[in-house]
């Protein structure tokens, strides 16, 4: 069984690799030999590689990345700091759930990105507006996932701790927190994607630096290879973060890994 499982995994990896490599080579070959390359419309992998080397490895893009990640980290940290306590409170007190549930659900389900122009007009072009946007988008997954985690805590375990003379502190530290943590990490993965949307929209809309600004500037000036290189960087970062969260999720709660909600 394990041998077969291993074989299946290698086959999968190999097929994936083959498909990516053949896609890239046929892209390169088609634009080199079959169709004439219109540099204002398309580009090819070899040119992207050159731009990638120049922008990323030699570091022209690092400044933009640093600017974006600073805004992202501020907004995301505040979302964690606000979202987890609010979610825990909603999970712990039934009346709090009743009061906030409708309002937060309405905000979570609606495209709050629509507020982006207003936020930028109010807070100005820069760190504050982008962080506010990231916060606004990524706080709700934390709230609702913490809420679900606290709500799903095993009552029996709480009673066991109480029976053995555990204090309120023990309840929180030894039962509620460990059982909520996997939910929070799952929420963090969703929040990550939404936070990235916030950064990108903020920087597309009005910015003078940052990765989103770099992409839209390269687009405006028809520098397609650089644009693709910047998109590639963002893709790599997003995949690393998302897959990292997914690994963490599996590590923290192996029994939940079967339910894969993306």
């Amino acid at each position, binding site marked *: 069984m394990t041998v077969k499982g291993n074989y299946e995994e290698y086959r999968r990896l190999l097929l994936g690799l083959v498909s990516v490599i053949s896609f890239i080579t046929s892209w390169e070959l088609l634009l080199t030999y079959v169709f004439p390359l219109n540099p204002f419309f398309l580009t090819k992998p070899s040119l992207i590689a050159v731009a990638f080397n120049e922008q990323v490895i030699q570091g022209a893009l690092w400044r933009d990345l640093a600017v974006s990640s600073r805004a992202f980290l501020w907004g995301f940290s505040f979302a964690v700091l606000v979202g987890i306590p609010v979610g825990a409170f909603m999970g712990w007190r039934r009346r709090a759930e009743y009061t906030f549930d409708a309002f937060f659900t309405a905000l979570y*389900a609606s495209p709050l990105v629509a507020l982006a122009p207003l936020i930028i007009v109010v807070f100005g072009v820069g760190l504050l507006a982008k962080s506010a946007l990231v916060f606004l988008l990524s706080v709700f997954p934390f709230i609702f996932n913490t809420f679900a985690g606290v709500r799903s805590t095993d009552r029996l375990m709480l009673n066991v701790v109480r029976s053995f003379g555990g204090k309120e502190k023990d309840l929180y530290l030894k039962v509620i927190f460990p059982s909520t943590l996997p939910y929070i990490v799952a929420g963090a993965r969703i929040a990550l994607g939404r936070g990235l*949307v916030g950064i990108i929209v903020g920087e*597309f809309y009005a910015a003078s630096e940052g990765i989103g600004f770099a992409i839209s500037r390269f687009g405006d000036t028809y520098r397609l290879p650089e644009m693709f290189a910047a998109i590639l960087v963002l893709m790599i970062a997003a995949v690393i973060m998302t897959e990292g969260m997914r690994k963490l999720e599996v590590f923290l709660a192996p029994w939940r890994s079967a339910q894969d909600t993306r």
Partner: protein
Amino acid sequence: MNRLVRFYLEREHYLLGWGFILLLLLAWETTPHLVTLPKGLSLFFTTPSKVLEAFYDLVVQNQIQHHFYVSAIEFLLGLGLAIVVGLPVGLITGRSRTIDAMVDPYVTVFNATPRLIFLPLFILWFGIGMWSKVMIVFIGAVFPLLINTHEGVKNADRVLVNVVRSFGANEWQIMKVVVLPNSVPYIIAGLRLAIGRAVLGVVVGEFFGASEGLGFMIASAATNYKVDVVFVGVAIFMGLSLILTLSVKRIENKLSRWRPEETKTF
């Protein structure tokens, strides 16, 4: 008194939920009457009644209808295209392991990245007209649909598939009898997520390089400090996505009562 308490307790969930929202609106409405706002802030401040007024004015001037029509067309075309592409691809990757392995890297990467980064590229390719927005809606909505269809097909009961196959069904009949009915709840869940992404695509797509649509209305109102018009647009988007997601959610709950609800995702 006792009856009043019972009445309250039975409907506590709704009463508290709606009460809180009404309280917030009321506080919002009365704030400028209670305190005088500093001049800088009052420029950005509006009240629900002014938002309603602005909404009425825009309806009378026939502006909302036009912008709404443009946005709706983009939304429907993009989402329709996503369904037309996402469902078949999801079905195929769910049934064939080889094709799944070959498509999976792209799906993983594109699903992890916010697809809005392709907006400048799409504007370059499809122009600033309707089609760049349709494409951004499409690329946003297609992945949730594809992934959920894939999951639904893959989770089809092996035993049932084998039974049908033993009775001599071909691949198409297996699809029709077992796989498709099994994956409907998954597809509906994917559709709910896809609607959210599609609305996001319409909003952000119209922020940039557009001359009509509700997103454009919001963006141009914000730059002209017409905060009430901004909130008219935001409220329309909020209302629409709430109505759409919640009604799909209702269908979903009806179809999959047995699956325990995990956490809210939009």
